[in-house]
């Protein structure tokens, strides 16, 4: 059954990134608790950025900082994924901050962190 996964054995970082994406996605999707959902969201985002950073890596090449004037392409890895992931990390922080602010407001209003519980209270009280 595992021969179609054989392509993964020389790709350790991508395989782990996809597994982490699965863990984060499942937690965000399944877990009723809000804080665990946000944690799942963070894990999902960092997993995608790990995948993107692993795509830029080239064996035997150094970080894209020009060292003593060498500017040939063979000396450095691909800088584009680093640029994209830098942008992505800040997006994850801002989304986490907004979600946590919503959680605090929800807890102040409903005194529970469980999103199904909140739905029941809303249905009962009507607001």
């Amino acid at each position, binding site marked *: 059954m595992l021969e*179609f*996964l*054989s*392509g*993964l054995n020389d*790709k*350790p*970082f*991508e*395989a782990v990134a*996809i*597994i982490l*994406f*699965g863990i984060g*996605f*499942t937690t965000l*999707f*399944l877990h*009723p*608790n809000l804080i665990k959902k946000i944690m799942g969201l963070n894990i999902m985002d960092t997993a995608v950025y790990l995948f993107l950073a*692993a*795509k*830029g*890596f*080239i*064996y035997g*090449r150094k*970080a*894209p*900082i*020009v060292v003593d004037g060498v*500017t040939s*392409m*063979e000396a*450095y890895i*691909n*800088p*584009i*994924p680093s*640029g994209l992931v*830098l*942008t992505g990390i*800040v*997006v994850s*922080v*801002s*989304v986490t*901050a*907004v979600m*946590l*602010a919503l959680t*605090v*407001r929800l807890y*102040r*209003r409903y*005194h*529970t*962190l*469980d999103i199904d*519980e909140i739905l029941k209270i809303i249905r009962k009280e009507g607001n």
Partner: protein
Amino acid sequence: MSKIRRDYENSLWRKLVRFVYGENDSFHEKAGYDIEHPETEKRKEETFFEEVDYTKKKKESDKFFAKYSAIAEKRGEKVYNHFYKFLAAITCFSIIMILLVTVAKLPSFGNPDNPVNNEVSERYIEQGLEETGAVNIVAGMILDYRAFDTLGESHVLFIACVCVMILLRLDKETNDPEKLKALENDRDFEPKNEAILQHAAKILVPVIILFGIYIVLNGHISPGGGFAGGAIIGSGLILYLNAFGFKKTEMFFTTKTFSVVSVSSLLFYSLSKTYSFFTGANDLHSIIGPGTPGAILSAGLILPLNIAVGAVVACTMYGFYALFRKGGI
């Protein structure tokens, strides 16, 4: 016998199975912050009929009937819960398997002739130095080649801070009783001024902020840049706030400084980028030259932009913490 049973009960595999099949007691936070689930307790000490007069018995049977219908409805909901959780677990598992299969077919890890290493990355590396003057090619790419993304990026951070302000800021003149109550008890959450934290902060805070400034200033030479340096300065300020309390921090960092610093650096960022985009699009000569690579004051606009982004990120990170903690910056 029971010891084996108990080990089996809380072994990892049993927990995973129960997590997948959705009995939620292994995850349902008994110890955490949820209220205890009333109906599980209620059902245990449920008493049946005693000899009572007719009206009381009528009321009793109504309550009894209501409870049973509640349980029936609760069971319906439990079945739905199980079904929904099982279906959701299946969809997540299938998504992960599909992704694993696609990743297996993708170009291999780390070999030089991937489709990713094409003429786009070649130009960034080959002419990156003399076109942008930034030794750190990634910083050159972010703040000069693809600057529109990073412009959007710092506005993502700004809009997140505005959202947290809308949600958590407690203004004096709100008439909402819940907010006013929250306003008082936030005030008494002043940090506890322990001596240990204050002494540690006295040594650590200057070092952290100095290191953050170093990262911001050398953004185009060594790795780092506006985002990393700003976050370091922001956490230095948070440490200072925790150690010395709101009164001392408000001496040098109030709402006015926050809005002045973040708005002015965002405006500087937008206007300088408008200038460079406008001159670029209309093929006018822009007066910003790449400067001598390696020197601090080189790489054209990248240094001031790094300082602006560092200021925005530092203010926003500190703003997040202060808004959460005190409901105001």
